């Protein structure tokens, strides 16, 4: 019998279509794997099923009855619970208070919360899982990441779920934690309950799931049985057949000057990435790829002097200068486009002009004086170069579209004439037309002899525009690919996961 049926679910975030006509049917007693690349919509789907966000349209049925959760607690009362990918516990509360969040009324006595009862109940929950080192009355923030995940797990199971969603949790767990988790999943299955298991670890998915659903770009590609399923064929499904995109570079070989402009040596940031060494050449687009948490985003920030590495050096070769902070980085020709455009890339409540000119003020000034005419000139020429759609350069960035915002964030470094650009997910959440113009711009800059580091979570993009691709896994360089015609996503994925 069907436990959960999802029909034609659509979800659009401001500019991106996260889910498109998603239909899913989970049987009772089934452990269903859910795999796909970053941004394929797995977590969005999980959030919708667990009531954290609402779909734009579409229907859901649980045990063939309409199911429309309005909140996580709502979903819990329908016996559906989730362990989220990010931190799902609240700092400052005790372990027990986290487990029974929203269920405090169970322990109410004369209007007061009976914490000792709550702690006792928590102990019982833990004992069942064989967890004996977590005390219910400790502050959750004093626990390790793994312990917190186990607390979340206990909390999700306490609901007594018919359907448990596990979103990218195993990566945080040790072998012992995993054993506890999979043991419980099996127990759920044997009592005719179901699990949706989201993971990047394909081997794990094949070992523990009955069927796997593959998602790509917000759509469901296929659902296959894990019997006799090979990891490689699952990867092929994830990557899918691709239409040849015309907006990428047309040459098929790496092409850049021998001159090294940036040298990174043994760069380590404890807890994020380790022993990163590479050189960047004049006229080169160097792609850096990996999973979201492989350390590449923090690496980008470090290169721009925003993070202090634990050890190692970043050197602008031509000027024989080591980069230790962001002011120096900019002065020595670096530019940085952050991944988080609205919080880090732009001042939304400032004008296009102010945003574009900010990094260039030191260049514009003459004896501290910055001429308003010069500012206008810089902003207008920059805006024209990237054909930003706007009413005037005095317009606030807040009301621009995502693509136009990205253009403004990029223009900052164009007008400053930066020689080395670090672009973190330059085409994230923007439409195809702007994407194409950004790729064109990167090509133009490359032709002019600028050097670009492009950090990206999209393999296609990495293959499409990079001269070389550095692949990171768990913070270490696993492989460096050179541009070639027959480079495939499967080849790269192999080193990422």
């Amino acid at each position, binding site marked *: 019998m069907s436990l959960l049926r999802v029909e034609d679910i659509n979800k659009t975030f401001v500019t991106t279509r996260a889910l498109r006509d998603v239909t899913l049917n989970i049987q009772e007693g089934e452990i269903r794997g859910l795999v796909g690349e970053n941004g394929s919509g797995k977590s969005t789907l999980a959030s919708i099923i667990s009531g954290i966000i609402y779909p734009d349209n579409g229907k859901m049925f649980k045990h063939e009855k309409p199911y429309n959760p309005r909140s996580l607690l709502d979903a819990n009362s329908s016996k559906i619970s989730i362990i989220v990918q990010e931190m799902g516990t609240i700092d400052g509360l005790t372990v027990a208070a986290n487990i029974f969040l929203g269920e405090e009324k169970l322990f109410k006595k004369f209007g007061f919360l009976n914490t000792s009862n709550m702690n006792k109940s928590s102990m019982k929950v833990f004992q069942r899982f064989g967890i004996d080192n977590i005390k219910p009355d400790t502050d959750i923030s004093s626990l390790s990441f793994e312990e917190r995940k186990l607390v979340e797990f206990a909390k999700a199971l306490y609901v007594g779920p018919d359907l448990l969603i596990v979103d990218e949790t195993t990566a945080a767990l040790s072998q012992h934690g995993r054993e506890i988790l999979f043991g419980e999943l099996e127990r759920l299955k044997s009592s005719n309950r179901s699990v949706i298991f989201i993971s990047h670890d394909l081997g794990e998915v094949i070992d523990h799931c009955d069927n796997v659903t593959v998602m790509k770009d917000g759509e469901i590609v296929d659902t296959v049985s894990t019997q006799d399923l090979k990891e490689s064929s699952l990867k092929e499904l994830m990557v899918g057949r691709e239409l040849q995109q015309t907006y990428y570079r047309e040459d098929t070989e790496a092409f850049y000057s021998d001159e090294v402009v940036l040298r990174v040596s043994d760069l380590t940031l404890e807890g994020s990435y380790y022993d990163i060494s590479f050189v960047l050449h004049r006229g080169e687009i160097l792609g850096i790829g990996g999973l979201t948490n492989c350390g590449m985003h923090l690496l980008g920030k470090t290169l*721009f002097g*925003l993070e202090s590495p634990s050890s190692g050096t970043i050197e602008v070769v031509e000027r024989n200068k080591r980069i230790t902070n*962001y*002011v120096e980085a*900019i*002065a020595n020709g670096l530019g*940085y486009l*952050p991944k988080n455009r609205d*919080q*880090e*890339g*732009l*001042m*939304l*409540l*400032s*004008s296009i002009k*102010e*945003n574009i*000119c*900010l*990094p260039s*003020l*030191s260049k514009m*000034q003459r004896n*501290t*004086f*910055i*001429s*308003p005419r010069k500012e206008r000139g810089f902003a207008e020429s920059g805006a024209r170069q990237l054909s930003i759609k706007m009413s005037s350069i005095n317009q606030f960035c*807040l009301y621009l579209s995502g693509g136009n915002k990205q253009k403004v964030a990029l223009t*900052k470094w164009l007008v400053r004439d930066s020689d080395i650009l670090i672009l973190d997910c330059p085409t994230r959440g923007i439409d195809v037309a702007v994407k194409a113009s950004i790729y064109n711009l990167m090509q133009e800059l490359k032709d002019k002899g600028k050097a670009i580091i492009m950090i990206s979570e999209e393999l296609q993009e990495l293959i499409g525009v990079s001269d070389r691709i550095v692949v990171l896994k768990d913070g270490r360089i696993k492989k460096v690919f050179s541009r070639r015609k027959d480079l495939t996503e499967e080849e790269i994925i192999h080193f990422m996961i």
Partner: protein
Amino acid sequence: MSGIKKIIPYIGLVLIIVIFGALTQGKLLTFRNLKLIFNQAVVLIIACGGVTFVMSQGSLDLSQGSLLGISGAMAATFAAMNTALALPMALLTGIAVGLINGSLLAFFKIPSFIITLCMLFTLRGLTVIATHSGSIPIPFEMFGLDSYQIKVTLLVAILVIAYYFFNYTRIGKGMRAIGSGEVSARYSGVPVERMKILAYLISGVLCGLCGWLNVVRTGAADSKTGLLFELDILTALVLGGMPLTGGSSAKLQSAIIGGLMLAILSNGMVLVGIKAELQQAVKGVIFLLAVYLSFERESVVLIK
């Protein structure tokens, strides 16, 4: 900000002049009274000018009232030894306090509201100690310094210089960028920590100057000097159109317009005969009203 919002402070200024002009049957605008208003406004406008740099970053400076007190006390104490020491000591006091405020904010990431509030209490305590809970008179020969020439020259010079740095240099632009979005400003190369310290330094040194001006005008440093002055500054700036969140719509004009408005308002209330206790209450209500009218709610959600 829409066009109408920009001119609201100017309309407010005109309204206050008209209302109190009418209520006092023109007494407000007599030459003698205008001189009185000017005397009150000078100190307020200069201090507001300094705090403008702080508020443009989206921070607050509530230490000003007590700083006015302690810098005045320092000026008066040292004037007893040598009258030439009075001004440098007042300025040094302002610089020191500004440096402490700015460094605490920049390096220890304590909210500016808390830092400067603590500073307000601390400095008030020191002022009471320095004045022995009473007042310190200044030497008679300093009375001559209370001249309109000096005050007008100082006011104009400070406003011109402040206007230049606020609008045409990296300092003002960088500070407003911090108010618009600290992270983005940093990522665009604004030296955030340095800017924060500099803002409090400017605010402190100008308040130190006000402390000296105040002592020279009143002839003594009192333990109560500057009480609630910080709230007058805040009210004046908000009345003048300064957004509490700072950012790109922060303007130095707010200091001038707001300072004038509050000086006229205070003076007018005295002329009309409103009791001193009630005057504070009226100011409080006006402050709330000004914040309500000028608060950009949508931007607060975005920034903080």
